[in-house]
């Protein structure tokens, strides 16, 4: 673990020293990051595969007299450390080439600053999940925010990024304020900062305080995780960062917030015995469902590739939260509740790592498109599949995975979530059960919409004709970037085809957190090749699937179909222009993303509040139309309805107050006199 720290530290330091030569800084810094990630992998695997219940602790130097700093890696921490390290490896492989290729204009100082921030960012995240006390947690939490802020604003210094960074900082800072209260309320009870003491101090909390603290913490973490309606910063900040950092922010940083929720909900604040208060789980479940649906709906209407991906992060966080909330509802309920809670938590954690894998992959692919074309609006791309085959193929892989389609990993975790939801529904009769099933239906809707969205994203970006010269002259990304993507793509396939083996890694977190059966005991009871989830109380009639067999079957069938496809007389295909009712096809004939998403915009108009304006240029008579200009936009409801109003309100208020102040000195004196008068009346009169 110290090795990991050393590596990140060395990376930061090296990039600081090497600020004269950007190339060196990039190389060394990313190398150090890679080493740190590998070390992190080692640590986490060591804990996860070691004997369950073992906690790796490591005292840190006492920096502050009032708090003893320490690291404590238990199953949960190790799992999230694993997620972080997995993506960090890809980012470290991908980073140098990207930074060089995307912004060659950037001076060495700026590149060095970026690498420095990257190392700090990774280090803070790794230490955050390993933190054994509140102080370390808070310091790393803010350090993580600060480093990512630097990365966001450093990408290119135009106002847009600065605004995105500002919004990001302010909202997360607000979240941190909530966290501060939640933490300090515990530390002041405990008189110490380490988690063990907090756990003990939370033992004798009364119900209302406990719930209040949980909601404070949940609010704080939800801001970071981008839960609707606290998500507005996310689709701005994530795209603004360099792409491998976007991958880290979307794929990992949001998960750190999930870690915080789990740590608080199941560990620190959990009552000594008995189930959690019902309000916790239901809040999380509802928040998750709303985020999932709204996230994908807004993603559908985005034409900025990275923004689209960022909105999908909102969606996937929602899916994870559905699992978490369900686990909270079911935990320590009688009967097979415990088992079901394990299934739900397993689904959530599995989706956590899955989302890290495919969202990281997608962001990296989007990044290589970006650094080759310098265009983020997919309307201006197209036809890239023939010029960047690797990128296109890997993006398609990620698209299938994130759409929750078999045989890739997205399907597995969504399947587990569905099973858990059904189990919950069969346990709770009455409205509770109905609510659970309804969120299952919403989850299904989410999956379908995600598929639609990525059909659009992939099709419009990579297929058809190139719409602009940038897309026309794109070339394949350098091999080191491809390597980073391939690593994540391999993860997607492996987790999809053989998920049973991943369950082994989930044992420690699930068992450690729920004090119940481990993941593999429940989900892969029939061997690693078979996933099963017991729905009934007894868990007798369990639903079982085998991703492995299904993948094998698919391959076999594909082989047969391949032969069939070659046809009886295998002649090379003639090529001809695309059929466009007999006209000569041009790029303008291709279906645009706007047009693709239009029907869904109609269907969900209530949520989008679409605004469109059509301007016609007619030649004298309205019947002869020279040109039609169509402009349309959709608004983010929470943004326009909540944030803009609040912001406008505060600004207007302060403007007026400031305008009121006349710089007259007798006014100043009057204030002093009045204050004294009032103070004497209030405090002076003897009781």
């Amino acid at each position, binding site marked *: 673990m110290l090795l990991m720290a050393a590596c990140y530290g060395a990376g930061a330091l090296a990039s600081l020293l090497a600020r004269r030569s950007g190339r060196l800084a990039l190389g060394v810094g990313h190398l150090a990051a890679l080493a740190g990630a590998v070390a992190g992998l080692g640590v986490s695997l060591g804990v996860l595969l070691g004997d369950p219940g073992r906690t790796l602790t490591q005292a840190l130097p006492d*920096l*502050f*007299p*009032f708090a003893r700093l320490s690291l404590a890696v238990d199953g949960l921490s190790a799992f999230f450390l694993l997620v972080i390290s997995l993506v960090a490896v890809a980012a470290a492989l991908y980073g140098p080439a990207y930074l060089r290729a995307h912004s060659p204009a950037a001076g060495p*100082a700026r590149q060095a600053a970026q690498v420095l921030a990257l190392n700090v960012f990774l280090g803070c995240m790794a230490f955050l999940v390993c933190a054994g006390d509140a102080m370390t947690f*808070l*310091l790393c939490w*803010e*350090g993580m925010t*600060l480093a990512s802020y630097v990365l966001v*604003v450093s990408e290119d*210094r*135009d*106002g847009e*990024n*600065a605004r995105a*960074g*500002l919004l990001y*900082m*302010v909202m997360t*800072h*607000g979240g941190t*304020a909530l966290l*501060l*209260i939640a933490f*300090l*309320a515990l*530390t*002041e009870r405990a008189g110490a900062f380490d988690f063990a003491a907090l756990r003990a101090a939370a033992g004798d909390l009364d119900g209302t305080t406990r719930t209040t603290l949980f909601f404070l913490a949940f609010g704080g973490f939800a801001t970071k995780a981008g839960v609707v309606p606290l998500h507005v910063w996310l689709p701005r900040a994530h795209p603004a960062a360099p792409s491998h950092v976007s991958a880290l922010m979307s794929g990992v940083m949001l998960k750190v917030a999930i870690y915080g929720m789990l740590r608080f909900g199941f560990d620190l604040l959990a009552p000594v015995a008995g189930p959690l208060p019902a309000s916790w789980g239901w809040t999380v479940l509802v928040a998750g469902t709303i985020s999932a649906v709204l996230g994908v709906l807004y993603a559908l209407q985005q034409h900025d590739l990275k923004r689209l991906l960022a909105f999908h992060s909102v969606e996937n966080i929602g899916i994870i939260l559905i699992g978490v909330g369900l686990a909270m509802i079911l935990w320590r309920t009688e009967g097979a509740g415990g088992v079901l809670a394990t299934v739900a938590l397993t689904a959530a954690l599995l989706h956590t790592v899955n989302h890290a894998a495919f969202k990281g992959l997608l962001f990296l692919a989007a990044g290589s498109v970006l650094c080759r074309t310098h265009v983020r609006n997919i309307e201006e791309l197209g036809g890239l599949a023939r010029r960047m085959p690797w990128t296109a193929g890997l993006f398609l892989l990620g698209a299938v995975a994130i759409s929750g389609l078999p045989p890739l990993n997205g399907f597995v975790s969504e399947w587990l979530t569905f099973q858990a939801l059904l189990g919950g529904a069969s346990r709770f009769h009455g409205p509770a059960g109905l609510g659970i099933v309804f969120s299952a239906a919403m989850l299904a809707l989410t999956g379908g919409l995600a598929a639609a969205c990525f059909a659009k994203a992939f099709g419009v970006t990579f297929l058809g004709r190139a719409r602009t010269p940038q897309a026309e002259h794109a070339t394949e990304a350098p091999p080191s970037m491809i390597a980073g993507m391939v690593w994540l793509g391999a993860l997607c396939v492996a987790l999809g085809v053989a998920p049973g083996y991943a369950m082994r890694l989930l044992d420690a977190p699930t068992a450690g957190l729920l004090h119940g059966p481990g993941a593999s005991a429940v989900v892969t009871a029939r061997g690693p090749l078979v996933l099963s989830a017991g729905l009934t109380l007894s868990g007798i009639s369990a639903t079982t699937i085998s991703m492995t067999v299904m993948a094998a079957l698919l391959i076999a069938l594909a082989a047969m179909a391949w032969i069939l496809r070659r046809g009886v007389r295998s002649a090379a295909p003639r090529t001809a222009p695309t059929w466009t009712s007999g006209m000569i096809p041009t790029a303008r004939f291709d279906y645009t993303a706007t047009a693709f998403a239009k029907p869904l915009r109609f269907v969900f108009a209530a949520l989008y509040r679409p605004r469109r304006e059509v301007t016609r240029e007619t030649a004298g008579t309205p019947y002869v139309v020279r040109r039609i200009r169509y402009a349309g936009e959709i608004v983010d409801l929470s943004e326009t309805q909540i944030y803009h109003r609040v912001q406008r309100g*505060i*600004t207007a*208020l*302060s*403007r007026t*107050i*400031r305008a009121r*102040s006349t*710089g007259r*000195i007798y*006014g*100043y*004196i009057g*204030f*002093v006199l009045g*204050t*004294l008068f009032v*103070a*004497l009346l209030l*405090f*002076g009169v*003897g009781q």
Partner: protein
Amino acid sequence: MAETLLWVLPLVPAVTALAMLTTRSRRILSAIDVASSAVLVALTLLLAREVQAGGPRSLGVFRVDDLGLVFLLLLVVLTLAVSIYTVGWLGQAVAVGNMKAESLRSYFALVHAFVATMVVTVLADNLGVLWIAMEGTTITSAVLVGYHGHRHGLEAAWKYIIVTTIGISFGLFGTVLVYAAAADVMGGAGTMSWSAIMQVAPTLDPGIVRIGFIFVMIGYGTKAGLAPMHLWLPDAHSQAPTPVSALLSGVLIKCALLAIIRFQAIAAAACGPAFPAQVLLVFGLISVVVATPFILAQRDLKRLLGYHSVEHVGIVALGLGFGGTVGTYGALLHVVNHGITKALAFFAAGTAIARYGSRDMRAIRGLLAVAPIGATFLMLAALSLAGMPPFSIFVSELMVLRGGIGHGQWVAIAIFLVMVVVIFAGLLHHAGAMAFGEAPAAAGREPEAWSPLLAMLLLAAIMVLLGLTIPASFDALLQRATEVIVG
């Protein structure tokens, strides 16, 4: 040894002030300036070691205890930083014509007289001497505020001297009342020595002490810039020459706070700790709340920093008001942290203003492009002022919060946090707008002068260090200082 130091310390700047009048050469003046500040630092460290070894020392009307030592350290460190900064700043100011080359010596003399009075306020044991020195700071710094001599400067100086003099006269009235109570108890020739009064504090008449404390609170609170008596502060701090602004914001208001703390100790002993805590809490909250809108809608960079001082003094008052060991400790730590950070902020702002020739933040754009190092320092200072780790203010605000939560002051905590977040937004908005974007053609692109950067580096180093750790010796000092207050 320590006793001699007690009278040597105020003498150093006083003598320097006189020595300044003997020469006109800028180089020599700056040399003397830096040298005497360095001597001051050295002597203070010596004194600190003595006190750490042998406890509080007193000599006549002077006395140094751990509480005073905290403020003294802040004072001398900032003085040194200011001296280093002034070297480069003067060059630019004279070049532009803000400072007249022939009148420099009076400027230096006034600055050191100002420092001398502040040293006396920190070291004073006799409450009367404390008051006299405080009024002395007002007079000297008022002249410095109006030093540029243009209309705005004089206006600010007038407001400053009038309002603070009123405040201080209230302070005198409070002092008289407390003295009356003490003299009544002691009988015979009563004394105004704080340490002596503390001996008998529990037996003082609570009623009269209460009124006395209110007068002191309003009076020295005016000087400390607590709302709603703060109105002069943004004017004065924004119009003064940048080094003076740093001293005003960084040290002077802290000296006033020290005076309040001394009387708080007496009042707490006489009327029970609840009463002064309550008063401090109210004024702290008012300050934090009142500062917010002016920070959000501010256009003038230095006024922004001025209002920020109001907020942070409010935070210190909150910490004292929350009371208890934790809260008081946090308050003292915050005094130091804010002093360092605010001086850094003023330095960075001063260089930026000199570069763009305007204090209007809408005119300052793309600082990172034209002055990367200074811009980085500005951003660091802004982030620290906003309470971001790993910078020092985060730690002290954390301590203050702990104090509040420990005493269950939920309402105060809620208001405090909301305001802090809003201010964070405003400050970061302003800082980001200045740092990023495209720099106007008018902006000076000459390389950055070394001495201001050196001064900023010194302060930034302390800032980050205190954000990452609290050295054991410093912690021990703060602990003992806390005991002096809380008992």
